[in-house]
């Protein structure tokens, strides 16, 4: 089922890409192909791979009846909690990136790390605080002092 959806997504993606390609202006300055032809080949290839996946999935489904599929060891059992945790993490990271410049690297990073540490390394608030502060300070020092990359000061600009 997942593979059917994936194949569908690839085909839709390829069509959108091909449409965007067809909207490009036709420019040919000393170049018989112009900027549109090569992307058109790529879009066609993506489309083809989507169709091929459909064929593969269809064939596999026919085979499953006779041959049992052995799952690879890398596949972990599905955890019910996981999608929620990952989504929360994603949202928290988006908030961090939004705050990156206005709030500033130091404050935003300490808060971000502390939030994640509280989630994944529970019951050790002091260790977590030390890790968040220490890590942020080390990274800040490496980037601003050693690599001369100014990190955004944000609300600590007065310092």
């Amino acid at each position, binding site marked *: 089922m997942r593979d059917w959806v994936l194949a569908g997504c690839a085909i839709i993606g390829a069509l959108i890409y091909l449409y965007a390609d067809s909207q490009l202006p036709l*420019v040919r300055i000393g170049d018989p*192909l112009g900027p549109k032809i*090569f*992307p058109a080949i790529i879009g066609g290839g*993506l489309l083809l791979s989507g169709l091929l*996946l459909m064929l593969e999935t269809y064939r596999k489904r026919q085979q499953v009846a006779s041959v049992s599929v052995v799952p690879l060891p890398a596949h972990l059992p599905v955890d019910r909690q996981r999608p929620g945790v990952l989504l929360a993490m*994603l949202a928290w990271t988006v908030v961090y990136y939004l705050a990156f410049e206005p709030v500033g690297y130091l404050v935003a990073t300490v808060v971000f790390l502390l939030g994640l540490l509280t989630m994944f390394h529970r019951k050790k608030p002091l260790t977590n605080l030390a890790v968040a502060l220490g890590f942020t300070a080390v990274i800040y020092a490496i980037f601003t002092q050693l690599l001369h990359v100014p990190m955004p000061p944000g609300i600590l600009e007065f310092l």
Partner: protein
Amino acid sequence: MESLYGILHGLAVAAQPAHLLYTLIGVFIGTMISHLPGIGPSAGIALLIPVTFGMDPSTALMMLAGIYYGCMYGGAVTAILLNTPGDAAAVMTVLDGYPMARKGRAGAALAIAAVSSFIAGTMGVTALAFVAMPLAAVALHFGPAEYFSLIFFALTTVSALTGESLAKGMMSTFIGLGLATIGIDLQTGVPRFTMGFVQLQDRVSFLVVVVGLFAIAEVTRMVEGTLQGTMHTVRVQGKLWFTRQEWRRAKPAIFRGSAIGFFCGAAPGLGGTIAAMLAYVTEKKISKRPQEFGHGAIEGVAAPEAATNADTCGAFVHLLALGIPGSGSTAVIMGAFIMYGIQPGPMLFTTHPDLVWGLIASMYIGNLMLLVLNLPLVGVFARILYVPPGILLVLILGIASAGVYSFNMDVFDLFLALFFGVMGYAFRRLDIPKAPLIFGLILGHTVEQSFRQAMTISSGSLMIFLQSPISVFLLLCAAASVLMSMWAKRKPAAELHKAVEQAAEGG
């Protein structure tokens, strides 16, 4: 002969104190990364690239290459002690390494892994040094048509031979190629697929994609690990060395594994995992005691370990001589080359001899450093395994964010990296290989340029690709690799499944 002078010259370059120091830092970081389940060499190199921006390119590349082979070297440790491969290529080492550890022979397994890695690495670098230059000399005669066919071949093998499904490999390659078309077209100045973002006019930053796809996406794997809970570690007991009888059994396996590994590395896109698989299956097939495999046969540790390490050297052949990466990690290293303003390829041997030979020679030194680091310090490194993964994953996310931001000092890159992180997660859940995407992204620009140049030369006739014998040969190779994947792919996969099943029964 010229290669010999090259190596000697390279040794002089690599032996400079700064270069020695950064090689050591590289292999040290590589070994550490290999001990972190979930984080592989590609992610490690990507995370470290921003730190190298101020450095001299030779020094930086020695360090990044050190991370790569250091990681391959150390992947065995988690495989043997934790029953979890530290990187994908160590998956075969698990089959016999962990049973050996369970039998109380963890020390011997670790020692044989380190020694096989060292022998294979040294043999591999020697082969690399002598093969790369003649190959580069041939490649100097390549025109746009030959280059197009060469890259086409590389892209075909990587899509056909990584992962389980040809369609998914192709999909990944075309997504990578599609990403490479984003930005201003150099020949006509037309902005393509920028979706109105000014930041995308200068193309999608390679670093952002790699950090997102590997580092950020791998964090999700660690999250799953922490949620799932326990991993069982076997403590190292007794002496860290093998018996004479074990050595006698392992020695031929090491040499066979090295040869298989180097050839797999030299075939673009095959990668360490397939090298290790082939080496393991070969050993099992020719062994007089096949029933011992999966229950702690020392050849089952020696051969795949040798193969993965020789494979890294083989992968460098293409990168240095042709400008085509040989594996996902060498593709990331190639990205670093380009970021430093150096185009890897046949000209490299004439334009930057210090860099190429210094890099090759540093791999000899790095291998020696790894042997010294790994044998006595294996216990120290193993402590990394006890760092709570909850802390590690948070720190990796922190490093990734700071590194991506430092690249352009633009928050847009952070969101882009997060987007690719989500994409990398989806790729893993859907079993889509990531290496083809990286190949497509890094080679997309060159393949389009050579295609358009060839078409300009031929005034738009596709026949130009069939007029040169080299080009025809490469296109035939590409076709062969697709056919090979269709006919023969099931076989090693089936063998692997059988071996894994046996290991599960034995463990």
